[in-house]
């Protein structure tokens, strides 16, 4: 039995595949579960595209998912941002699938690694920056200097705006990573504690009820967090996409 609560986050190489620029690319548990999540998402949505006039159960689920993300984009950013709807959709379901897969025993939570969450967050912010400059030109940088303030205020406001912009990818990455890690560590700790009590035997073994109940409660909480963090990541992406379209805020 692995009694280290961090053991579950270890990346295990299954096979070294090839090298790119001095870096070895290997097939790992992380890449395996990433591919699994992508296949599950595509498989799920492949079942929902029947295009019937009166939708069946699966088609309803697919259309519900579509409208959920579409409304999120429309309500937070606006109809003009619907170009980014597939991106937000992919982001949401990739994170949701990774989080939910992570809830299965023996599965690996790809989103519990800051490398993955940071890459997603940095890419999201890069999308905002590139799309913002593409659309507004250099005027886009006005988002750091809200109009209608006395000149002296800009000395304070501009650094604050820049810091808040830079902290966006950091918070985006850390929030998802920390939530996933904390939940899984807590689950593991309570499970290890339960196993420890049970191994003691005698009257102490009866105390196993407490960590088992706690584990059950945390599992329920973790399912909530799995959905919530995917939602938070997606909706914050929409909020940040606002800066592409609404430079004068």
């Amino acid at each position, binding site marked *: 039995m692995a009694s280290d609560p961090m053991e579950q*986050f270890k990346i295990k190489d299954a096979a070294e595949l090839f090298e790119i620029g001095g870096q070895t690319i290997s097939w790992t548990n*992380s890449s395996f579960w990433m591919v699994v999540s992508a296949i599950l998402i595509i498989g799920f949505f492949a079942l929902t595209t029947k295009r019937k006039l009166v939708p069946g159960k699966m088609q309803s689920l697919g259309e519900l998912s579509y409208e959920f993300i579409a409304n999120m984009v429309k309500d937070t950013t606006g109809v003009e941002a619907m170009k980014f709807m597939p991106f937000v*959709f992919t982001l949401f379901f990739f994170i949701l699938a990774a989080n939910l897969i992570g809830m299965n025993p023996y599965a690996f939570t790809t989103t519990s690694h800051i490398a993955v969450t940071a890459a997603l967050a940095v890419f999201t912010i890069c999308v905002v920056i590139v799309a913002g400059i593409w659309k507004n030109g250099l005027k886009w940088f006005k988002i750091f200097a809200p109009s209608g303030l006395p000149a002296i205020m800009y000395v304070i406001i501009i650094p604050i705006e820049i810091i808040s912009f830079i902290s966006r990818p950091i918070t985006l990455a850390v929030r998802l990573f920390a939530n996933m890690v904390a939940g899984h560590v807590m689950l593991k700790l309570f499970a290890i504690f339960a196993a420890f009590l049970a191994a003691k035997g005698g009257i102490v073994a009866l105390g196993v009820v407490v960590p088992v109940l706690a584990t059950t409660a945390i599992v329920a909480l973790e399912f909530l967090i799995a959905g919530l963090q995917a939602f938070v990541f997606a909706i914050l992406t929409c909020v940040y996409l606002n800066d592409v379209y609404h430079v004068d805020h």
Partner: protein
Amino acid sequence: MAADTDTKYGAAEQAASGGLPQLDLSTWFNQIFWLVIVFAALYFILSMFILPRLREGISDREDRISDDLDQASNMQREAEEAEKAYNRSLADARAKAMNVAETTKKSIDAEIASEIEAADANMDRQAEIAEANIRKIKTKALSNIESIAGETAIEVVSTLTGKAPTAAAVRAAMTP
């Protein structure tokens, strides 16, 4: 497993390097490499195949529903127009009936008025004739009264005085 037997050493190593496997930078490139491939493939498949079909399914239904609604509102408009036409013809018929009644009433009234006029004229004529008769009878009676009064006066005088006055004297005495 072999990995489990030397967990202690692994844990010690990890504790030295910060503990979290997530902070092992040697795995980052590999993870990000796979993330880019998987995410790109997922984005491509979802945005090229899945999402357009879902969107079309939804918009087809919306089109159909709005078509049906349009048709329903067209039908309602037609029904309203038919009702309006019905009401109009009803009002026309009523007005025509009223017209007929009015003209009939007017002609009858005129007839009644002319009859009454005729009857009035007839009555006036007869009244005039009667009045003329009455006047004639009255003058006749008045002239008779004079002669009767004269005779009566002669009688009275002859009875009282024993002398009969002449008719001329009586008439002279009676005329004021």
